[in-house]
C-alpha cells in the first residue's frame, strides 16, 4: 500500500502543471472559475481544444496511430485533476471521448480515416442524439426511425431527439435510431452519423432553469442519411451505445472540479462577513465545509483505487456507478455551500440568455452566479444515467439479481 504517486507519475504531474501555467489562457480560466464554464462561447471552447491539440493532449485516450497519447488511467486522472483545479475548460466530450472510442472499436477504416482528423482539427463539432421525450432512463424504448430507401443508398430518418447538449454549436450528431420495429427493443437499434445541415433537421433551443441555452430539441423529418454513415452493423447499435456509456462514465467522480469548487467556497467564506467576523469562523458553516471536504478526501482515494485497478487492466464495474452517485452528491453539496455562503447576494440573476443582464450586477465577493450554478448542476444527478438508475445497477449487481 502506497498512497503516493511514483516518480514518473510525479514528473508527469509537474509537466501537466507547467503546461497549464503556461498555456491556459487567463480569460478562459476566469470564465470557468466560480461559474463552471457556463459563460464559455463556442470560440472559447475551440481555442482550448486547439491549444491541447498542439500539445498532443486533446485526445489522450486515443490510440497513437490516430494521434492519441495512449495515457494510462493514472495519467488521465492526473490531467483531469490538474485541469479541474486550474479551472481549465472541460474538453467537450461528445466527439473526442464518446464517439471516437466507438469508431476505433466498431467503425470501418474509412470512417476512422475520415472523421477522426476532422474531429481533431475542429472541422466537426459533434453532439449526442440518444435521449428522446419518451426515452430517457429507458433509452432502449427510443422511437426515432431509420428506414432504408428502395435504392439502398440512404436511410430515411424520422423522429425527435431531445436534451442535446450544445447541439446549437454542432454540425454533426451521432444518433441511436430504430431500424427494426419488430425485433426485441434492444435488438432493433442502429448507430448513425448524421450531418446536421441535411434538409429536414430542425434544432430548437431549450432554455434551462438558470437561463442557459445549453440543450436542444432536434427534429428529423424525412432526413436522408447515406448508408456509409452507419457505424458497424445494422441493429447492433445498442452494443455500441453501451460501450460508449462506459466511456461517458469515466472521470465521473469529478474530483478535480470538486476540489476547485471547495477552494472557491473557502475563499468566499473568508471574505463574507457574518456577525462581524469572516463566515469561515462561524463554527456551523465551517462544519458544513469540513463535512464535505472529509467526504471528498475519501472519494478521491476511492477514485484512485479504482483508477489503479483500471490501469492494471481490471475492468471497473459497479465502481463507476458508485463514483457517479457519490461524485454528484459531493459536487451538488459544494454548489449548495457556495450559494449559502454569499447570503442575499445569491439572489441576483446573471444570465447569458437575458441580454445585458450582467450590467451592474452586484458581486462584492467575486462569487459569480452561484445560485444559477446550484440549479444548473441539479442536472448532474439526472443525466448520464440518473442516480436512481445507478443505484439500481449497484443493487442488482451486488445482490446478484
Amino acid at each position: 500500500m502506497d498512497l503516493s504517486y511514483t516518480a514518473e507519475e510525479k514528473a508527469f504531474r509537474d509537466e501537466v502543471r507547467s503546461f497549464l501555467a503556461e498555456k491556459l489562457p487567463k480569460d478562459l480560466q476566469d470564465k470557468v472559475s466560480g461559474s463552471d464554464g457556463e459563460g464559455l462561447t463556442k470560440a472559447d471552447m475551440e481555442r482550448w481544444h486547439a491549444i491541447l491539440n498542439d500539445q498532443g493532449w486533446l485526445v489522450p485516450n486515443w490510440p497513437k496511430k490516430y494521434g492519441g497519447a495512449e495515457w494510462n488511467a493514472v495519467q488521465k486522472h492526473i490531467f483531469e485533476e490538474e485541469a479541474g483545479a486550474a479551472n481549465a475548460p472541460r474538453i467537450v466530450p461528445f466527439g473526442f471521448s464518446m464517439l471516437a472510442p466507438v469508431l476505433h472499436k466498431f467503425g470501418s477504416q474509412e470512417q476512422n480515416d475520415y472523421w477522426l482528423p476532422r474531429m481533431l482539427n475542429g472541422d466537426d463539432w459533434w453532439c449526442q442524439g440518444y435521449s428522446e421525450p419518451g426515452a430517457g432512463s429507458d433509452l432502449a424504448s427510443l422511437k426515432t426511425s431509420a428506414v432504408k430507401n428502395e435504392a439502398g443508398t440512404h436511410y430515411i430518418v424520422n423522429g425527435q431527439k431531445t436534451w442535446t447538449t450544445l447541439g446549437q454549436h454542432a454540425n454533426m450528431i451521432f444518433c441511436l435510431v430504430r431500424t427494426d420495429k419488430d425485433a426485441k427493443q434492444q435488438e432493433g437499434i442502429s448507430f448513425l452519423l448524421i450531418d446536421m445541415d441535411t434538409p429536414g433537421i430542425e434544432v430548437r433551443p431549450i432554455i434551462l432553469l438558470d437561463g442557459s441555452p445549453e440543450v436542444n430539441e432536434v427534429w428529423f423529418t424525412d432526413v436522408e442519411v447515406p448508408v456509409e454513415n452507419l457505424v458497424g452493423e445494422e441493429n447492433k447499435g445498442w452494443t455500441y451505445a453501451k460501450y460508449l456509456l462506459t466511456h461517458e462514465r469515466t472521470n465521473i467522480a469529478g474530483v478535480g472540479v470538486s476540489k476547485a469548487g471547495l477552494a472557491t467556497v473557502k475563499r468566499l467564506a473568508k471574505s463574507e462577513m457574518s456577525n462581524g467576523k469572516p463566515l469561515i469562523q462561524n463554527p456551523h458553516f465551517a462544519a458544513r465545509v469540513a463535512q464535505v471536504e472529509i467526504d471528498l478526501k475519501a472519494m478521491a482515494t476511492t477514485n484512485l483505487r479504482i483508477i489503479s485497478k483500471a490501469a492494471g487492466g481490471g475492468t471497473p464495474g459497479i465502481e463507476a456507478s458508485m463514483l457517479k452517485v457519490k461524485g454528484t452528491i459531493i459536487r451538488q453539496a459544494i454548489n449548495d455551500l457556495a450559494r449559502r455562503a454569499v447570503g442575499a447576494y445569491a439572489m441576483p440573476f446573471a444570465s447569458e440568455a437575458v441580454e445585458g443582464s450582467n450590467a451592474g450586477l452586484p458581486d462584492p465577493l467575486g462569487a459569480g452566479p452561484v445560485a444559477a450554478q446550484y440549479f444548473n448542476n441539479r442536472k448532474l444527478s439526472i443525466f448520464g444515467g440518473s442516480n436512481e438508475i445507478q443505484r439500481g445497477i449497484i443493487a442488482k449487481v451486488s445482490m446478484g439479481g
Partner: protein
Amino acid sequence: MNFELTEERQMLQDSLRRFLRERYDTATRNAIIDSDTGISADIWAQLAELGVIGALFTEEQGGFGGKGFDLAVVFEELGRAGVVEPFLDTAVLAGGLVADLGDESQQSLVEEIIGGTCQMAFAHGEPTSRYDLNRVQATAKADGDNIVLNGHKAVVINAEAADHLVISARESGQPGDDTGISLFLVPSGTKGITIQGYALLAGGRAAEVMLDDVTIPATARLGKAGEAFAAIEARIAAASIAQCAETLGAMETATTLTKDYLMTRKQFGRPIGTFQALAHRMSDLLIEMEQARSAVINAAGHLEADRNTREANVSATKNLMGRAGRLVAEDSIQMHGGIAMTQEYELAHIAKRIVMGDHRFGDTDYHLERFIDLSAA
C-alpha cells in the same frame, strides 16, 4: 383548539386562489419575469381590488387583517402561483413600518398602498451585514433641521419601482448595536440616491441603493431617533412569516406537480411512481409537507405574542422551512428528470422561489443559531 380558517379568511383564500389560477398561469408569469419592470401593474391593481393588500394591515391601520394568519393565508396563495410581484416588500415590510411608526402625514401613504397606487421598498441590508438586523453602517447625521444619509444598501427588492424608500441608518453607536438605528421615509427620487437595478434569479427585481449625502428634513424620520430596532425586528418577523407561507404554497405546487408526474410519466413500461425508490421519496415529501404546514401555523399563531416567544417561533419555522423547502425543491426536480430543468416548466420557477426564499431574512443556519440563542435566553 380550532385549526379552521375564519370565514373571512376562507373567502379571501378561495377568491385569491381562483383569481391566480385563472389569471396567472406559467406563460403569463414568465412573460412578466421577462419584462423590463419585472412586475405587472395590471395584476397589482386587480389584486389590490380583491383586497389582498388590505388584508395585510390591521383595522386601525386602515386594513382588515394584519394578523399572522392573514399574512399566512395571502402569501400561501401567492406562493402557490409563484407570484413575483413584491407585495411583501411594499406592504408587509416598508408599508408595515410606515403604518407602525409613521406620524399622521406619513401614515396617509398606507391608504395609497392598500389601494394599490403606491410602491415601496425597505432599504436595510448592506453588503457586509449578511442577515444581522443590527449591523447597520449607513449613517444619518443631523445638519440643522436636516438629516444627511450616506451608505450602501444591498439587494433592495423593488427599489426601482418604489415611489418611496424606507431607509435604515445609524444615528449613534456601532454596527452590531441595537440602539442608534433610525428609519427614514424618503421619496425615491431624492437627490443623492442612486439605484442600480438588476433582475433576480427567481423573478422580480432588486437594486443596490447608494446613498450619497442624501439630504432630507428631520420630519422624514419614522418614529423616534435611534430606537427603530424593535420595530424592524417585529416587521422582519411578520415578513418572515409571509415568506415562509409563500414557500409553503410553492412547496404545495411542487409536490402536486411531482405526484401527478409520477403517476403519468412512464419508463420501462410503467408509471415511474411505481418504482419504490421514487414512491418512498414522494412519501417523505408528503410527510415534510405536514411538518411545514404546522411550522407555518406555529409562527403565524405567535406573531402577536411577546417578543421572545414570537422570535423563537419565527426562527424555528424559518429553519424548518429552509430544510424542508430544499428537500422538496431538489427531490421534485430529481424525480421529474430532465423536464424539470427547463425554464418553461412550472416547477423550475417554483423550485427557484423555494430555494431563494432561504436567502431572505436569514437562512436555515442563521435561524438554527438564533433559535439556540433565543432558547437559552
